[in-house]
């Protein structure tokens, strides 16, 4: 669905005379293929280039070199920009700074309104999107009365109402409390499993990565690891070198192994660890 072809992105700092003063390479020759219906998680510490990569996926940033193709459309082609953004929706970090309207349902309607969808269809889409994002009973409220997690689900509903095939979440859970994070994750998983919506989740919470089909680790503007969560987290030493942690359960299993408890590598969930420990006893 999305094809990222050897892209490089430079942030360029210019002085008053418009001369290039400094440039920082945020993304360096990254290639990535995202299939329809996939759940991808991009991990990386601050400044690893993961947010920049995310913003190139729907033509908010255009790569300095290389190409991004969304369903065959090049993000450089300005005539395709709207179509690309309609298909690849985005949810950002700060919930307050992406809500346009004073009423939840009017905000959800913002995307389809921009696309020129007829009124009756907007109403139907908004109702469905709010339902799917679990904010149906908050429709008439002001976003200021909602919690962070609820605001992010309003943003997700806004993307759903555009009938996007893919949602890119740029550290959308970073400013939320644990309950809000869990709610958002539950919504995303159900959208991915039941509606087949492609999810690209940029995060630095390891616990969120275990739900993904594929985990991508970025460090210093490059993709350094790629694989299923099990494959990636079974190499804790290597991950730590890139400045990120393994999930707590994985860490516990690792500590147990060091103490001589025989466990398989890459345990990701509490349930998994419990059943492995029970099996050992039996």
């Amino acid at each position, binding site marked *: 669905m999305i094809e990222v072809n050897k892209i490089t992105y430079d942030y360029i700092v210019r002085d008053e005379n418009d001369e290039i003063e400094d440039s920082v390479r945020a993304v360096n020759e990254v290639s990535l293929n995202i299939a329809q219906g996939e759940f991808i998680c991009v991990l990386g510490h601050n400044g690893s280039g993961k947010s920049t990569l995310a913003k190139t996926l729907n033509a908010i940033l255009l790569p300095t070199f290389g190409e991004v193709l969304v369903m065959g459309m090049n993000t450089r082609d300005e005539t395709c920009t709207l179509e690309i953004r309609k298909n690849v929706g985005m949810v950002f970090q700060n919930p307050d700074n992406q809500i346009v309207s004073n009423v939840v349902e009017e905000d959800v309607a913002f995307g389809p309104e921009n696309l020129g969808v007829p009124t009756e269809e907007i*109403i139907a889409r908004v109702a469905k999107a709010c339902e799917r994002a679990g904010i149906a009973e908050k429709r*008439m409220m002001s976003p200021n009365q909602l919690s962070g997690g609820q605001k992010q689900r309003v943003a997700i509903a806004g993307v759903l109402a555009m009938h996007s095939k893919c949602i890119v979440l740029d550290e959308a859970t970073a400013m939320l409390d644990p309950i809000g994070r869990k709610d958002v994750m539950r919504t995303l998983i159900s959208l991915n499993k039941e509606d087949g919506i492609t999810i690209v989740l940029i995060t630095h919470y390891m616990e969120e990565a275990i739900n993904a089909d594929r985990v991508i680790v970025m460090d210093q503007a490059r993709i350094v690891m790629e694989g299923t969560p099990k494959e990636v987290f079974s190499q804790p030493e290597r991950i730590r070198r890139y400045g990120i942690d393994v999930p707590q359960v994985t860490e516990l299993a690792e500590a147990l192994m060091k103490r001589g408890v025989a466990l398989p590598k890459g345990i990701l969930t509490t349930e998994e660890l419990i059943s492995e420990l029970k099996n050992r006893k039996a």
Partner: protein
Amino acid sequence: MLRDITLGQYYPTDSVLHRLDPRTKLFGTMIYIIGLFLCKSWIEYGIAAAALAVMIILSRVPVSFMFRGLKAIAILLLISVVFNLFLTDGEIWIKIGFLRITYEGLRLAGQMAARLICLVIGASIMTLTTTPNALTDGLERSLGFLKVIRVPVHEIAMMMSIALRFIPILIEETDKIMKAQMARGADFENGGLIEKAKAMVPLLVPLFISAFRRATDLATAMEARCYHGGEGRTKMKPLKYNARDYAAYIIVIAFLVLLILIR
């Protein structure tokens, strides 16, 4: 102080006024204000006040909400009353030293106060019964003719609605910055006017920086949601006149005609 302003604060109930088209309410408020400025005698002010009272009852918004808006203009009200009271020539009523109050001054001051109070409450009724979005929609549609002379009506309406959305967020942020600075010994309460103004500088700088950052974020988010100006945009809630709107237009015009006839 910022919290006292009711303008732009929607009060949700389901009254007749709430269900009116925003264009009707804008027109009605405008006519009401024109009517207020036509008032000369106390009878006319009585009619205007009675009309206002009917509107307050119809709106089903608690009266205390209406009067909250008055706090913001208290000083303006006081100044205009005092000036009219003491500086109007005419038949002297009381004389204390060099100060004198005339009958004309008394009348003018009273009418000025009545006019200002009715004006603010009238405008408050409109903003309390209309969602800011409906209000900007109404403005956009009513002023659509200005597009011909290249006034960016849609953009202005969009800016207004975004400004309204961010007012509470920025107030909260101001509060946070103030508390953070007070925790480090900043003093916003004591000192003269100049010192107080100086104390505001370290408050405003971070507030502006944060506002600009929010603006950038919001612009990106709007672009990501396919915003590309007013062209080709549809509405979830398009404005539509109903029978009650036509009735309201007739009542409002009748009100104006009545005021003119009474003069």
